[in-house]
Every structure is written in C-alpha cells, then in structure tokens.
C-alpha cells in the first residue's frame, strides 16, 4: 500500500517509526476498526505532513503516539521511539516520555489552554515535574521559551491568563508549552485551523524555524493542503484509516500517484497558484 520514502536526506536517523499500527475502538456491537495498519517515519529537523479528510484517522494516529487514545481502545503494530515500543510501554514509563520526548500541540488554543491557570503555571508545571527544576529555574526557562516563540514582554505574560491573549498568541504559547522539555518529536494537530488566516502564516513560519533550529521531528496533521505545501518536507495521505500515498512533498502534491490524492488536490481552490 505504501511506497518507500526516497527523500534526499534518506540517511537521516528515524526518531519515530510507526509500523502497521492498527486501532480498534469499542462500538455498540463489538469493536470498530479505525486504523488499518499505518506506517510512518519521522526524522529530526523534518516536517512530515499527514493529510486526509476528517474521520480518516489522522488525529487518532497522533493520539496513539502519546498513548492518549479513548478508553477501551485496542492497538496493534508498533510505535518505536528510538527503538522503544511505546504501545507496550507500562503507563508510568509512557507518562515519563509524554511532554518530555514527545509532545503535542492541539487544534484550538482557546480550549487547549486552561482558562483559569496562569500562563506561568501552565508553562512550568511539567518542567518542574519532568526536569525537577525549582521555581526560579523553571521561570527562567519559561521566559526563554516565550522569547523563542516571539511573545513580547515574557515576564508579564507569565502572570497573565489565556483570555488576555489573541488566538495566534495563544497558539504560540501552546507551542512554547509543548517545547518546554526539549522533546524530540512534536505532533501538531491542525495547529492553524482555528486561527485567523492573517496569523496562520506567522505560526507556520514559527513551526518551521523551531523545527530547523531545534532539530525537531514534526508530525503535522492537517486537512489543509495549502498549509501542507507551505510547510511539509514529506507527506502521507490518509483515507479511511489507511495511508494511501507517501512521498516527498513535491512528488505527492504535484505528481500524485494515487487517485484519492488527485481528488483532494482538485478540490483545492486555485491550486495552480499555491
């Protein structure tokens, strides 16, 4: 089903490798298969796009990596992070990797940030838990992170609450939270979908820059092929729980081999001038 990747940097080490991932969710009569054997690989400093219509299993694939699937979910296959299989890891050890080795940015920052906790609290609690930093050191790191995502006046921002920021700023803060513990892998689930078009570009540029500077391996989940073509190095297209096509961005988005990818591309308005 899948094609082998042949990118220019094919030699780069794979940080995260998903092999034959299957997922069954409990349904009224028995179980319902959501993912039918997904294969993906993420490399440091590279953004891998995961495209497909809603309900195709993109988000579930991302949640599976973090072990945050809904109750009663049953998985098969393997998700290896530096050789460790995340699917068979005991909950405690998986918890230690979450937010530290693998982190996630969610779609809507107005719901993914806690409205009643200060930015400082949300930016430092996992730092203090994972890194055992004291209050002062965690604060210093938080100021540094807010600077990295271009939030003006970081010290004041730490004392503020999410409702005091605009949507774009909130998503930058959510990205700072995800990057706090220097993860190797970042899963970005529709990170710009909920934002105004005018601020989308800024957040996308930020993701690209952080990916390059920090050597992050990014899994960019989006149904927006415009975002995909602007950002992704390589692309997988999903449909009904299967990866139908994988390859370098240029190949998949300009010379798609699969019928479904072509349909998606044709659905893009004014796609000749991306």
């Amino acid at each position: 089903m899948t094609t082998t990747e042949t990118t220019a940097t094919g030699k780069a080490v794979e940080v995260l490798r998903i092999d034959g991932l299957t997922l069954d969710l409990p349904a009224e009569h028995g179980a319902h298969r959501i993912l039918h054997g997904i294969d993906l690989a993420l490399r440091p400093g590279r953004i891998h796009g995961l495209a497909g219509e809603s309900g195709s299993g993109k988000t579930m694939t991302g949640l599976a990596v973090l072990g945050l699937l809904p109750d009663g979910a049953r998985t098969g296959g393997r998700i290896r992070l530096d050789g460790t299989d995340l699917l068979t890891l005991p909950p405690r050890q998986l918890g230690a990797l979450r937010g530290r080795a693998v982190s996630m940015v969610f779609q809507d920052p107005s719901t993914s940030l806690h409205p009643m906790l200060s930015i400082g609290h949300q930016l430092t609690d996992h730092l203090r838990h994972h890194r055992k930093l004291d209050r002062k050191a965690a604060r210093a790191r938080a100021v540094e992170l807010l600077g990295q995502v271009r939030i003006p006046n970081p010290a004041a921002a730490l004392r503020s609450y999410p409702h005091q920021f605009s949507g774009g700023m909130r998503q930058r803060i959510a990205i700072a939270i995800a990057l706090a513990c220097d993860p190797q892998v970042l899963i970005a689930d529709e990170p710009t979908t909920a934002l105004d078009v005018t601020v989308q570009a800024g957040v996308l540029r930020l993701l690209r820059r952080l990916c390059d500077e920090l050597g992050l391996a990014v899994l960019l989940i989006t149904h927006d092929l415009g975002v995909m073509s602007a950002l992704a190095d390589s692309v997988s297209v999903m449909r009904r729980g299967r990866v139908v096509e994988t390859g370098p961005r240029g190949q998949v988005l300009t010379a798609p081999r699969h019928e479904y990818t072509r349909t998606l591309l044709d659905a893009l308005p004014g796609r000749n001038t991306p």
Partner: protein
Amino acid sequence: MSPRWAPSRRVSGGGRLLARHPLARFLLRRTAVAVLLAFGVTLVTFVLTNVVPGDPAAANLGQRAIGDPAVVDQFRKQHGLDQPLPAQYVTYLGHLFQGDLGESQQTHQPVLTDLATAVPATLELAGAAIAVSLVIGVALGVVAALRRDRLTDQLLRVVSLLGVSVPTFWLALLAFYVFFYQLGVAPGSGRLAPGMAPPPYVTGLHTIDAALAGQWPVFWSAAGHLVLPALVLTAYTVGLLTRFTRSAVLDVLGQDYVRAARAKGLPGRTVLLQYVLRAALVPVVTIAGLAFGALLSGTVLVESIFAWPGLGAYAYRSATTLDLPAVMGVGLVVGIVYLTVNLAVDVLYGVIDPRVRVQ
C-alpha cells in the same frame, strides 16, 4: 500582531493599588453592591411584616385586655404602631443603626440579645453541616465521575438520590430515636450536657468558645451534641453536591485542556487536582451557596426536634405569637446571611476564575 494584554492603565494616587489588583477591585465592587442590597432587605422585611394579616396588639394583650380600647391604644402608642408606615420605617432604621432591634414581646429581652445566642447556635449547626457536606459531597462526586457507569457510580447515584429525597424531619426523628433512645450513643437534645455552663461568650459558637477558653470537657460536649443534628442536615446537601460535582467533573474531563495536560505528561493526581477540580469547582460553588440556603430552612425542623436553641426555633416561636420585632429581626438576619453567602460565592468565582474579575 500587538498583544491584547498588559494595558498598564495609568491611575492616579490611591487608586493605584486597586488598578493593579483586579481581584481587589472586584471585591470592593461586589461588597458595595451587597451593602446596597442590605438596605433593600430592611425595607422588604419591614413592609412584609406590616402587610401580613394579624394584629400584634390582639396577639400580645390577651383576651380580656382586647376588650378595653384604652389598653389597646396605649399599647399601640407605646410601640409606635399609631404612626404612619413610612414614619415607622424611618424610626425602625434609626433604631437599627443604634443596634436597637426592639424588644421581643415574648422573652421581654432586646431582640439583639436573643439573636446573639440564637444566630451563633444556628450558624454552628449549619456551618458544620455545610463544611462536612462539601468535603464528602465533592469527594463522592469526583469518585462517581472517575468511575462513571461502573458499580461505584451506580451505588453513589442511589445514595445521593436517597439523600435528596428523604424528608429532613423524618430523618431527624429516626436518627434521634435510633442513636439516642435505642443505642444511646448520641447525647440528648440541646447544645450541651444538662447542667453544663456555656463557655465565655466570644463568637457564640460553643465549640470555638470552649476551645478558646481551654474548657475541653465543654468542647467535647458541644461537639458531641453537634454531630447528630449536623449529620441529619448533611444528608440533603451531600446528595445534591455529589450529583452536581459528578456532572461538573465529567464535563471538565472532556475538555481539551485536560487532554493537553495529560499530553504534557503530568501525573494523574496533578491533572485531577489542578486542572480538573479547579474548573469543576465553579458550578459546585454555586450549588453550595444554594445548599447553604436550603440548610438554613432545614434547621427549623431539625432545631425543633433536637431542641436546639437556634434561629429556626426562635423564628417559629416569634411568628406563631406575632412577635413583630422578633420576626423582623429574624428576617433581617436571614436576609443578611443570604447576602453574605451570595457575596462569598461571587468572591469565590473571582478567586477561581480570572475571567470573572474583568467584567
């Protein structure tokens, strides 16, 4: 892309502290509103007491004196009942500001003196009940939500339904009968063991006053007498709080920020205590305020069964004898207690949720 926050508004002089502390400003505003409402309470209690049918002179003078117009007139004059209503209200307010709530026609004591023992007795009872209810109700609600649709949840649903449905007076009678007459484990009625002198008056709450005075036997007697009536009162509020906490927690558990907190790798206990409970407390605080009001009315029945010399018993006695100064005093106190509870609820909103402070 200029940030919407950090609008360091310039404020002159003394306003600076308030400007810099949205919470302080919020508290001040809410308190001012509460004071205004307190005036409204005095007006309402005054008017309501005067429109209810029933002649206080007839109620207080007895059968034979009623027949003598001179005695009735003299009574009316003595109590200012011959004046027009607005004048009576102004007199009433004037006295109120001097701490004079009039004299009870039943106890022949100043109403303020009566209230000074009755109100703390009820506050001790209702306060103990709401504190216990909050701890138990919130804990059970969280457990029910985390064990959703499992056996524990089903059992708790039955328990909370029972708590809400069982009539308080029936439960009070049953508890008194079983634990006092049959088992003899609970002390009898009243606030203290018979013959025991109350502790020196500081707050009027026997448990606290006894502890302050170091009179430990009195403390244990007061606490012992508190247990059964307080537990009877908690049945309803525990049921209520369990159900509301369960649904509030379930609601919050489905929120994105809880999933985001888990994605950060925070331990489950941290996620529950800091991310889930914080948000779930907002509706719970609302219900707790309402539950406290329900408790105050519940005390009327519980106090009469346990012979607890509180506000409920006093209100009942004053109302049935048309003791108007006492009835107005009770009305005023209950109104102020409600205002205070509402203020406390508002303040808690502001403390829990920073978005409330700005409005």
